[in-house]
């Protein structure tokens, strides 16, 4: 699911919408999501936010409905600066998110093994810190793939 062209270091943006659109656009260019994907991500984030207070620091797992997705894919966005997102399940709480795991999921039953690994990754404090400080896309790719496979 993870693709190098969907990994971005230093995602610029001062709002959740900006960073979602920026990383979401990569999915469209890579051909794994439809043109509607970035709008759908933003809209979905408004209604049902996806930030999580991971032990290492706050992250978000933005995703949207399958009609906007062509192929299952996962992207990683390391934010240049922390950006305010709302917490999943408790939208009244604002979290300063530093890392995005963006997901394009078509059939969760098929991707459940990967989703489980992503949960483990979210709970792995050391790994999240290492990803945040990675110097290159290749480094992020190696680290995240080692957890997913």
């Amino acid at each position: 699911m993870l693709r190098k062209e969907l990994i971005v270091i230093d995602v610029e943006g001062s709002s959740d919408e900006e960073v979602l659109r920026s990383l979401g656009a990569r999915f469209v260019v890579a051909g794994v999501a439809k043109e509607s994907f970035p709008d759908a991500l933003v809209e979905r984030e408004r209604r049902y936010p996806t930030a999580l207070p991971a032990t290492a620091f706050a992250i978000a797992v933005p995703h949207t409905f399958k009609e906007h997705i062509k192929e299952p894919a996962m992207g990683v966005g390391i934010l240049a600066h922390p950006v305010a997102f709302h917490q999943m399940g408790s939208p009244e709480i604002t979290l300063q998110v530093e890392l995005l795991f963006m997901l394009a999921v078509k059939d969760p039953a098929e991707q459940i093994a990967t989703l489980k690994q992503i949960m483990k990754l979210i709970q792995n404090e050391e790994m999240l810190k290492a990803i945040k400080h990675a110097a290159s896309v290749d480094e992020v790719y190696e680290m995240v793939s080692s957890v997913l496979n």
Partner: protein
Amino acid sequence: MAKNVKLLTVCGSGIVTSSMIANVITEMLEEEGYEVEAMEANPSEMGNYLARSHYDFVAYASPIDEDDLNGVPAVPAIGLITGRGVEEFKESVLEILKNAGK
């Protein structure tokens, strides 16, 4: 004989997060000797699911409307994803099942 548990997980899309949560809860309860059936829904579908079939409890990762629960116990489940509060979640669920005679 294993005791059967039917649960509904709820998240914004009714797909991604609810599947993650369903998977963790299924493994958690199977370890306790339960036979688990998990369904996933988004918050607006939840009421219909609960009206159509009996569920032992709801685990939710997005805000839900209490009126839609119709008396079905509900437990917040974000902690299962972040890894914070997994034990508390398990205790709450086991308590609910015990109260239901399971």
